């Protein structure tokens, strides 16, 4: 079992996915690779369309018992259905220049976010959820309205494939704009490095929460951003502001890590207090963690 999981996880490796030119293939590969490594039963949905029967286990909800079968056979069976929802998911992908940072030997944050967005779109559209994609930097660059048709996936994926990192981050304004422009409440998935003023970001997120949206944040950060494992004299140049700092990273590594840790902790704490799900993603790690977080969130919404 473990071997099978290990083999399937290779399809979630962002470096491997980055070598696939077709975003459709990327999404399919990632999602199916993810599912092939999981026990299938917990992810059966509950809908009107019959799927299968299974034996009752203590803890199952009694409303799903098939009383007709009980009447005929004196055995307790749970009736299972194909999952079918009409949830609306807004995927907000940060495309600012800071997202183009890749670190050493890794994919960029934008690519990682794109793979994640593609995988989520694929996953949702096969469940017939309406999926919307919003690409933003200083403002919203591209807004693909929510659709639940399978063909909508192609639109999303081609948009992601054409997307390039540009501009500075202005996340707070974008969140306000999204909150004001979305007519139907749903799940807002924010994929960003959150490199903006945290207070403004919280205001935007609170605005979404105020409108009854469920919010899931995928905080994508490169490994080097988290740990600063550089050596020697280095001139760091900011991708957005072009500011420069020349320093020996080894001399301030500890302080940097503390600052980043404090930053992440603050976001985690604030979002947790506001009922916002937060998931920190290291771009050097596989995508399954993000997908797992999404599915957990999706299940809670049911």
């Amino acid at each position, binding site marked *: 079992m473990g071997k099978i999981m290990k083999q399937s996880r290779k399809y979630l490796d962002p470096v491997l996915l980055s070598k696939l030119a077709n975003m459709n293939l990327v999404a399919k590969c990632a999602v199916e690779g993810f599912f092939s490594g999981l026990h299938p039963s917990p992810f059966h949905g509950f809908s009107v369309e019959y799927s299968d029967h299974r034996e009752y286990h203590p803890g199952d909800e009694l409303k799903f018992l098939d009383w007709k079968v009980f009447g005929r056979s004196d055995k307790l069976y749970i009736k299972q259905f194909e999952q079918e929802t009409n949830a609306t998911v807004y995927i907000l992908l940060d495309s600012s220049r*800071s997202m183009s*940072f890749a670190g050493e030997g890794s994919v960029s944050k934008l690519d990682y976010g794109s793979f994640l967005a593609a995988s989520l779109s694929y996953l949702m559209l096969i469940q017939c959820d309406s999926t919307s994609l919003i690409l933003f930097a200083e403002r919203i660059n591209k807004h693909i309205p929510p659709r639940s048709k399978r063909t909508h996936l192609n639109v999303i994926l081609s948009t992601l494939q054409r997307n390039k990192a540009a501009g500075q981050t202005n996340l707070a304004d974008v969140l306000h704009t999204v909150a004001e422009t979305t007519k139907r409440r749903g799940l807002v998935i924010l994929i960003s*490095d959150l*490199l903006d003023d945290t207070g403004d970001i919280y205001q935007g997120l609170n605005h979404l929460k105020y409108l009854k949206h469920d919010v899931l944040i995928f905080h994508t950060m*490169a490994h080097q*951003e988290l740990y*600063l494992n*550089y050596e*020697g*004299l*280095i*001139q*760091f*140049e*900011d*991708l*957005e*502001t072009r*500011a420069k*700092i*020349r*320093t*020996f*990273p*080894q*001399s*301030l590594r500890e*302080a*940097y890590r503390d*600052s*980043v840790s404090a*930053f992440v902790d603050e976001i985690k704490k604030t979002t947790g207090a506001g009922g916002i799900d937060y998931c920190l993603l290291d771009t050097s790690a596989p995508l399954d963690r993000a997908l797992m977080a999404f599915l957990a969130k999706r299940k809670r919404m049911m």
Partner: protein
Amino acid sequence: MSFAGWIFLFGTLAVVGPLVAHMLAKPRYRRIPFTMLRFLRTGQTESQSRRKLRDIVILLLRCAIIVLIAMLFARPILHTKRGPEESRSVYYLGLDNSMSMAYSDGAGSYFGKMVDSAVEYIRSADDDGIFNVCTLGSGDWASGLSKERALAEVKRMKIRPMSTNVSEFFSALRATRNKERSSDISSVFVVSDFTPKTLKQFIAVEKPAAVDNTDYKLVGSRKPINNAAIVDAGVNSFADGKLTINATVVNYGQVELNRRLTARSGAGKSTSMDINLFANQRKTYKVQIDTDAGGQEQLFLPVQLSLSTGDGLKEDDTFYLGVSLPQRKSVNVLLADKGRGEMFLLRTAMDTLSRVNSYETLNVKQVLMDELIFSDLDWADVIVWSTITERAGEIAGDLKKFVKGGGRIVFFVAEEPSSRAAKQLWEEGVVAARPGRCFRERAYIEPRPCSSVLPGMDNAAAKSLANYRIDKIVLTGYLECEQHPESSCLWRLQNGFGFVYFKGLGNGTSVLVNTSADDSLGSLTKSNASVAFCRYLLGQTNQIGEYCFACDERVILPAHDIGVSSGGRKQFWVETCDGRKRQAGLAESFLLVPNPGGIGWVKTLSKPVRYAGVNLPEGETDMAKPAAEEVAKVMNRIFSPDGRQDTAVAEILGEKKRRPIWKMFAWIIILLLLVEPAVANRLKR
């Protein structure tokens, strides 16, 4: 701080190099696009300042290393202030105990007056003063004495048969003064008779000594000086057993002297003569002594010359002279030929030697071996056989008698010596080696004999043979010789066979030379080395030797044949002038005695006894009164009260003390060189 080689301080300009390099240097770095600069900025100030600090520290370290190296070459000297100290009185007493101080004018000796003056000076000095007493004659230095000990030291002082040595006094004075405190008050007191020789040494002092107080006492006599001395003696001639000595006598006094000069040899025979000397007159007298030197052995004779008493100083009235006399005036050499003309080359060499060497007469007679008669043996001192023939065997007994009586016999060998005669001679012990088989092949002689000291041979001639490149002479053949158990091989061929064998028998000696007297086996007598070789074979030179030394000199005794009984020893015992047994080292053919122990005789304790005379240096007892003004002038010059003329001492006595600190600089440089890479690496992190 000052610098001995300040010119090297220009080397500090080299710090410009690292300074310029620091200013022009651009750090090598990587450019990396990044996003989280706001988090980097938290530690950025510290990092930048740390980097700048590192650069500055390294720059300072490197500059410091360059500056320190330049200063090291400039030899820095640190001036340290001396702390306030209590002043002490330090006294330096230079007391003349040379032989001239033994002069007495009837009212007491100079030495006694000197001791009285010194005692008086010490008693008048501070009770807690420190005394340093130096004897100018013997050079003994007693430093750091208390008043009581100084008095005891002065009273214990004795006259030494030596000249004054002022330079030793000054060097000891300076060395002791270096240890003094700056607050000490130093006083010098010199007591001497200031004879011309002593005063000359004081005048020769170039660098004055800095002292606070100078005092001196000129010891002299109010009466006219009355002193004569034998200052030199040497052999004039030696003839018919009579030795004529030239004795030089000087009247150092101011009155006319009528004295009696006596010469006495070791045998107890003496000769006297009356002499008359005016004031300050120098005169040489010839004194003849009968030596009884008629025997065969070389005679070592102690000759003592003395003046009759009558002046104030008796130690210079005796002169000791060791004389070595030649064995005899002429040496009769008998050349015994096998055939006529065989010894022509050897005779020519002997004739040449007779003309050029120190032998007064070398009578050479050539006879045929078969015609040799017993009267020839009586006449000859040395018999040279061209080879061993039947005739030699026939008279082996007579030859033995000849050698035992002090004769010397030299055998050359031809290609076919008579084995029977050789056997007879061997049995009689006359021949040093028995010749055997003949080898007709080339052979070369070793350049030097087996030992540098060869008994019974002329060692100087052996040395000169090496100069004649005897090792280049080709012998066309040689014989295999069986060495006699009582003989020794003195010289060898390069192939290991013996060349010269030597045997002592009674008073005489027998020598065998492993080559022929003509050119049949060797080219030796035909070469330039033939004369020196003849001299070598005939034994020691017959020169007259004189052995007299000054008491401050190293004594050398002759030891030509001492190697016979030495058995390889390098140390020999001699009796010195003070009657003590001392060791003497053997060097070449001489015995060296470093310390004669006064004046008188130095002689060997083993027989034959050799003598060397030890006397006072000439002029030591010249009692001419010095001019008081001149003495005062000299003393005021060489002892400088303010010390300004003595820069070396003045620097030490100054307010500040100079201390070389280049070693400290060297250690600092080494430390910095170790620290620099450590600091650079540490700060890079």
